[in-house]
């Protein structure tokens, strides 16, 4: 890279053009604005409608630069930098009075209808328009007509619209329609009546709608959730975070202040989330502020202090009749700490409570290095199995980019999907037939590398197994990218997928074990019938959400939420990423006179930290009480060193699980296929906002539809359906029609599936009720 100020001819690496005499390197195909933005963080050229993900439009006319022709015959002319291809030795001027005047005039025009409401605008302090207007030097309006006025729309609990602030840069609609594929948001009208919005009030339907707040260069679309706990962005402490809400592992930038987590924004990672973050990642963080989040340790449903609960737990563990359950949504160290504790106690440990889920995790681990999400768009042939858009809402962005590049996308699904519009081949199937259809697709001759995107929640382990067995015969570069909603599945299950779940169940079903210590997982939420039939097992829970069994459990220990502690997460591609502590929950306090309320922090007051222990600390405390501290530490270090060849720091791009560590999982035999009948079968219905943690985010979760059974239209006249579990219990669900879904399929939320002990693809005998 050329450093600033060095004579550019010395720079043989890249070709350069000159902006105000400064050499700016560029790559072929870049335009001038892109090159300048890539060259330095703060652009000296103001701009609005340009966005790295959406490219140039030339609509705002703000990024003008003076171009000096080489021939000397033509006079210099003003051109938009975002529309000017960078070429060698181009001479551009930005700092001259004429250009600056032009920028000022454009700013004045853009501000013509923009209200003077920065003080009450949430964008103030992070507003592109504010920055550019100040930078261009426009300070006083000379023409003061009445400003244009709109009726803003109510766009749901996540995004707030204030249309009067619009400068018609079209970024929102370009993002929403062209990139996110949203159908319920558009641009209406013409001239100066252009309006960006929906047909009528209502929540935006796209799971990527939250990005509007970041895409909009001014305050038309702002973050409603952030607004609840609003503090100016300059007061926020931002850290490098990792989204824990699905297997993609998007990089986030949580912003916290005064002991509260206030917002999450996206932090660009070129391979995972170059530009955008889905709403689950953006708003799911609110689970830390859920009203029912447990904060008190309990014993038998009664409040107790942590130490006495730990004492009782340690005494119980010392009896040697306890089994351990880890969690694929907890971070690596927490799982390893519990695993090490189980090892030193020689107790059974599993990361999954269900052998079926465990088998899937094993198949996921056995996959050869999957491609990074951002690489999806490079594939020419893509097979999508299941509802990946519901599991990982950012994936459609990459699929859309692939489609725009001419990729052939095939879709096998049982639920409606926004990807239908992109798919060349679109087959609507019951879940049990997905495997055969995928097999058919592979049977077609593919010469170019292709990609299988699998929603591993709607398929069984046998599909993953059979498909990954074939990888050797595929063209080089082909791969499988599984998606699921657990943030750290490979990390949690690495030591615990060789039939551990079955052994755990056998142990608990026998007489030797009568106590289960579960971290971040609730067996009742994993397999309802089994748990109901083993009611004599005592359950101890370490968690930061109030799970189903929380109030009935023998002992409960609340722990710090994921954003309140550092963590390491293996995402779906086996990439290990580190998240920093996003915030420390705290309450303002002052010492001298409590009745006057908290002493202002900014004025020298203090924050009293309200810390809950992390799972690792709880495990350490248990090990100390058991007198096994040293052995536990030794174990932990051993497992950790084996798994973490190199440990990334927060903000690093991440390191991969070594191939040889994955290889040992390939030797497993095929999981037994399930019997399929031709009657009704179930599939998992999910909304994009659903995830164990994100369910606690009130605003986001309010968008999820009420629990129901969904069927294709015109199949049944009944209003309700009753389903029976193997143990005789039953559930009655309201029946709803869902257009564009597979016939003879009942789509049921996960909680109901678990209660009934059903897995996607299982045949059922529904009882139709009126």
């Amino acid at each position, binding site marked *: 890279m050329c450093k600033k100020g060095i004579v550019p001819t010395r720079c043989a690496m890249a070709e350069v053009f000159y902006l105000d005499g400064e050499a700016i390197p560029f790559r072929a195909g870049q335009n001038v604005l892109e090159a300048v933005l890539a060259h330095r963080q703060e652009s000296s050229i103001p701009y609005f409608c340009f966005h790295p993900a959406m490219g140039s439009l030339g609509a705002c006319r703000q990024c003008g630069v003076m171009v000096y022709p080489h021939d000397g015959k033509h006079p210099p002319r003003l051109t938009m930098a975002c529309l000017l291809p960078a070429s060698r030795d181009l001479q551009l001027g930005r700092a001259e009075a004429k250009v600056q005047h032009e920028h000022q005039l454009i700013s004045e025009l853009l501000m013509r209808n923009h209200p003077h409401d920065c003080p009450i605008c949430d964008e103030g302090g992070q507003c592109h328009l504010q920055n550019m207007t100040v930078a261009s030097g426009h300070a006083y309006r000379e023409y003061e007509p009445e400003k244009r006025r709109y009726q803003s729309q109510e766009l749901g609990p996540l995004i707030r619209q204030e249309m009067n602030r619009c400068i018609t840069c079209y970024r929102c609609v370009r993002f929403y329609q062209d990139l996110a594929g949203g*159908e*319920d948001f*558009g*641009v*209406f009208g*013409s001239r100066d009546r252009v309006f960006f919005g929906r*047909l009528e009030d*209502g929540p935006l339907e796209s799971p990527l709608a939250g990005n509007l707040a970041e895409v909009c260069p001014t305050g038309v679309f702002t973050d409603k959730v952030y607004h609840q706990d609003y503090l100016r962005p300059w007061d926020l402490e931002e850290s490098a975070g990792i989204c824990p809400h699905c297997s993609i592992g998007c990089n986030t930038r949580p912003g916290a202040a005064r002991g509260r987590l206030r917002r999450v924004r996206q932090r660009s990672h070129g391979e995972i989330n170059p530009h955008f973050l889905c709403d689950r990642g953006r708003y799911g963080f609110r689970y830390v502020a859920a009203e029912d989040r447990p904060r008190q340790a309990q014993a038998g449903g009664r409040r107790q202090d942590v130490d006495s609960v730990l004492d009782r737990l340690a005494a119980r563990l010392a009896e040697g009749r306890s089994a351990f359950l880890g969690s694929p949504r907890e971070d690596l160290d927490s799982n390893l700490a519990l695993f090490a504790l189980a090892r030193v106690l020689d107790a059974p440990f599993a990361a999954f409570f269900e052998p079926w889920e465990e088998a899937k995790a094993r198949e996921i681990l056995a996959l050869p290095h999957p491609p990074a999400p951002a690489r999806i768009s490079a594939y020419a042939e893509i097979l999508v199995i299941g509802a990946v858009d519901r599991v990982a809402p950012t994936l459609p962005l990459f699929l859309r980019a692939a489609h725009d590049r001419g990729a052939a996308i095939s879709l096998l699904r049982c639920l409606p999907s926004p990807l239908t519009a992109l798919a060349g081949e679109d087959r609507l199937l019951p879940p049990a037939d997905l495997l055969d259809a995928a097999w058919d697709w592979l049977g077609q001759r593919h010469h170019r590398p292709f990609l299988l995107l699998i929603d591993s929640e709607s398929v069984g382990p046998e599909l993953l197994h059979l498909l990954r067995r074939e990888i050797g015969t595929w063209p080089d570069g082909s791969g499988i990218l599984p998606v699921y909603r657990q943030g750290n599945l490979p990390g949690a299950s690495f030591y615990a997928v060789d039939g551990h779940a079955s052994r755990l169940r056998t142990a608990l079903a026998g007489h030797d074990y009568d106590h289960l210590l579960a971290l971040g997982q609730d067996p009742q939420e994993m397999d309802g019938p089994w748990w109901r039939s083993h009611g004599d097992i005592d359950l101890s829970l370490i968690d930061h959400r109030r799970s189903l069994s929380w109030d009935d459990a023998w002992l409960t220990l609340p722990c710090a939420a994921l954003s309140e502690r550092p963590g390491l997460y293996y995402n779906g591609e086996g990439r290990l990423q580190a998240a920093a502590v996003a915030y420390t929950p705290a309450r303002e306090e002052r010492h001298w006179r409590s009745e006057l309320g908290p002493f202002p922090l900014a004025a020298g007051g203090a924050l009293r930290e309200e810390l809950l222990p992390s799972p690792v600390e709880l495990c350490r405390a248990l090990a100390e009480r058991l007198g096994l501290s040293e052995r536990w530490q030794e174990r932990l270090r051993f497992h950790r060193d084996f798994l973490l060849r190199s440990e990334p720091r927060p903000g690093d791009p991440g390191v991969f699980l070594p191939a040889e560590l994955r290889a040992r999982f390939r030797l497993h035999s095929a999981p037994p296929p399930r019997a399929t009948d031709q009657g009704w079968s179930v599939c998992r219905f999910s909304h994009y906002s659903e995830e164990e943690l994100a369910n606690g985010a009130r605003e986001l979760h309010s968008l999820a539809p009420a629990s129901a059974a969904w069927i294709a239209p015109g199949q049944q006249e009944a209003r309700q359906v009753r389903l029976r579990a193997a143990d005789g219990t039953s559930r009655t669900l309201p029946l709803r029609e869902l257009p564009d879904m597979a016939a003879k399929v009942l789509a049921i939320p996960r909680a109901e599936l678990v209660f009934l002990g059903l897995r996607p693809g299982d045949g059922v005998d529904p009882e139709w009720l009126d």
Partner: protein
Amino acid sequence: MSSPTSTAESVPTTLLSRLQQVVEHAGSHPEAAVCDLLRILQAEHGWIDDERLQLVARLCGISPVRVEELCTFYPLVLREDPGRHVLRICDSIACHLAGAPGLLRMAVAQSGVPLGQSNGHYSVLPHVCLGLCERAPAAFVDGKNTVAPLSAEALRQLLQGWERES
């Protein structure tokens, strides 16, 4: 996307089949028929209400937002009830110089409602260039006939005629 409203009662079946024919004519690109559908529906009903908007969206296989984008962009597609008649008076430069602003003021005074709104019988709209600059000021009546040049007296009589009609 709001739920599609039933249009069975407001759109006669003959019209519906005619619309379907137009869509079929567009072949593999049904969305190409959207302008034709809007034109037919507006000719039949006078303006495009929400039901017709949804119908067009359904027939063309595109989202209602797209149809609305198109409707609100083009001035000849009306999204509000204009009354029985529409008078468009050109206010582009030639007509402006020839007295269109005076005519518009007159029309407003006579109809009693601001430009663009209906007084129940008719509405008067300013309009971009009608291409009749040589006979300015020009007007466009009910989307069918042009009147050019439009004198103040002719305007008064026209509007009076419409009022009497009701």
